[in-house]
């Protein structure tokens, strides 16, 4: 059994049945990771992972059955995990070793998964690409093709990964890599231990090569956590949606007007998914959502404002690189210049600008109103359908990252969804399914119908490239 070619459920089954040990599987995965481009990972947890795997083996021997026994898990470098540094591709966190475990990661590890490494993130963990810091250059060298280390790692045989899906970049990247990603409803999974830049939008996103694995990941990580006030006690179950739901009773919303925004290939994929719904007997309804351009801008105003406040905590005193200066003002100015990359500087300065007396009413307050309006609009749209079929990105080729506005524009179909607090399931080929809050089970169950069509679209597109 080659662990890098199978799914998490099969790995767990084999380990639980003692067909193979978690230790030998993890050893194989670590060797595999070492062979990958070393810029994908910020660090590999070789010894720690083998210790974790041995602990899983001991549990299995003593009669436990773990849903993710021996399954390799990769976490992005914005999750805290004891024993592994957290650097956020910035010297502002140099030598920082978090003293705690992110709640989501801890729960997944409790279900038997083994953390094999951390994937690199952009400058200060910000979605977009820029930066003079060493880690930030990782994306530049990755041909700008995929903006997420977690998506690359999962698609290259690491099976499962976790990443902060703030603006939807994780879902877009997973889709570009031909795999699946889920962003649960805010409140479903604890954010404790996720290093936040924009508190309103940052949220763990799951990436997996197989759709079924996302369901296990969600089940393992969901639930109330007293350390995160946002988590819900009662996660609402949508029992009526099961794998054999009758498509004739389910309405899929489609926004035909959005195809005008898309390049040829994503437009064709979106239409193909729509036709697939029709062929499978789903009821369909054409809907209009014209708030996206405003919502995207509002998202970035709020994100910039929050990021400027968050990043102002970094001062190089307890950890991180710092300049030597006798003057306190000079110390702050120079230390921040030294440790912040271009994107972190831009967001800090522009965010402060947007919160200034002159701009607050004009931009920030307006953005908050649009945020509320976006939630309202999505709720009205979801009243008319069970699931909303939505594109993920405008073009298959990512934007030119030298132009920061263009890279923000790429989030037009994902950032407003995150802003509205809706769960979203991303498929290969550039489409996502959205539903009302806490409807993840519905997404995952009905997602089975769309899986094949999405995979076919990706295959055809790859054959086209050949």
């Amino acid at each position, binding site marked *: 059994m080659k662990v890098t070619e199978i799914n998490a459920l099969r790995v767990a089954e084999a380990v639980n049945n003692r067909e193979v040990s978690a230790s030998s599987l993890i050893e194989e995965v670590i060797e595999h990771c070492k062979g990958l481009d070393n810029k994908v990972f910020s660090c590999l947890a070789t010894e720690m992972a083998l210790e974790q795997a041995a602990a899983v083996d001991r549990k299995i021997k003593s009669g436990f059955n773990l849903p993710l026994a021996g399954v390799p898990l990769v976490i992005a470098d914005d999750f805290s995990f004891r024993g592994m540094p957290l650097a956020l591709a910035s010297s502002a966190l140099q030598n920082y070793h978090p003293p705690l475990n992110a709640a989501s990661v801890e729960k997944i590890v409790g279900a038997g998964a083994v953390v094999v490494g951390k994937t690199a993130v952009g400058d200060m963990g910000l979605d977009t690409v820029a930066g003079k810091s060493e880690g930030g250059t990782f994306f530049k060298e990755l041909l700008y093709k995929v903006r997420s280390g977690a998506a690359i790692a999962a698609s290259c045989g690491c099976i499962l990964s976790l990443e902060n899906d703030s603006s939807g970049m994780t879902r877009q990247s997973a889709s570009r890599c031909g795999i699946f990603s889920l962003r649960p409803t805010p409140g479903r999974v604890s954010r404790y231990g996720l290093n936040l830049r924009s508190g309103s939008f940052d949220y763990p996103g799951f990436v997996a090569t197989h759709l079924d694995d996302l369901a296990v990941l969600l089940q393992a990580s969901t639930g109330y956590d007293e350390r995160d006030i946002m988590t*819900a*006690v009662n996660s609402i179950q949508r029992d009526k949606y099961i794998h054999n739901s009758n498509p004739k009773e389910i309405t899929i919303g489609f926004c035909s007007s959005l195809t005008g925004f898309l390049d040829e290939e994503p437009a064709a994929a979106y239409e193909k998914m729509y036709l697939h719904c029709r062929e499978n007997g789903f009821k369909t309804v054409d809907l209009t959502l014209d708030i996206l351009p405003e919502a995207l801008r509002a998202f970035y105003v709020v994100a910039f404002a929050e990021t400027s406040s968050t990043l102002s905590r970094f001062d190089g005193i*307890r950890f991180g690189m710092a300049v030597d200066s006798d003057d306190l003002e000079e110390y702050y100015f120079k230390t921040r210049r030294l440790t912040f990359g271009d994107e972190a500087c831009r967001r800090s*300065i522009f965010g402060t600008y947007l919160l*200034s007396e002159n701009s607050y009413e004009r931009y920030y307050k*307006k953005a908050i109103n649009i945020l509320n309006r976006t939630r309202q609009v999505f709720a009205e749209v979801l009243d008319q359908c069970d699931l909303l079929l939505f594109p993920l990105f405008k073009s298959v080729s990512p934007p030119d990252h030298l132009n*920061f506005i263009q890279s923000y524009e790429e989030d037009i179909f994902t950032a407003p969804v995150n802003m509205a607090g809706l769960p979203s399931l991303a498929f290969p080929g550039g489409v996502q399914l959205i539903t009302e*809050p806490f409807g993840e089970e519905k997404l995952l169950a009905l997602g089975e119908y769309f899986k094949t069509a999405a995979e076919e679209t990706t295959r055809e597109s790859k054959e086209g490239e050949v």
Partner: protein
Amino acid sequence: MDNHEETLEKAINTIKIEVGDQEKKILHHQLGQFLEWLALLEEAETENIEAQQLFTGVEKIKREDQPQESNLVEIRKEAAAFENGFYLVPRIID
């Protein structure tokens, strides 16, 4: 100095990031592009919009607002150096 430039200068000083003259010019240009991009917000109708809850029907637990006993041993583990009840950090000014 135009209004944007002045506010930008204030923002740079508030957030305390050293920015050279050349970088300042670039930032000023980028801010212009960004504000132009945000112009759509100014046109959007935002009167009488009610605040929306992120989601409804979800039970939340509220902890009692009472101090809890802290575990000094655990707290010390978080510090790079700890002495006489204080965190020790690198000296910045003499």
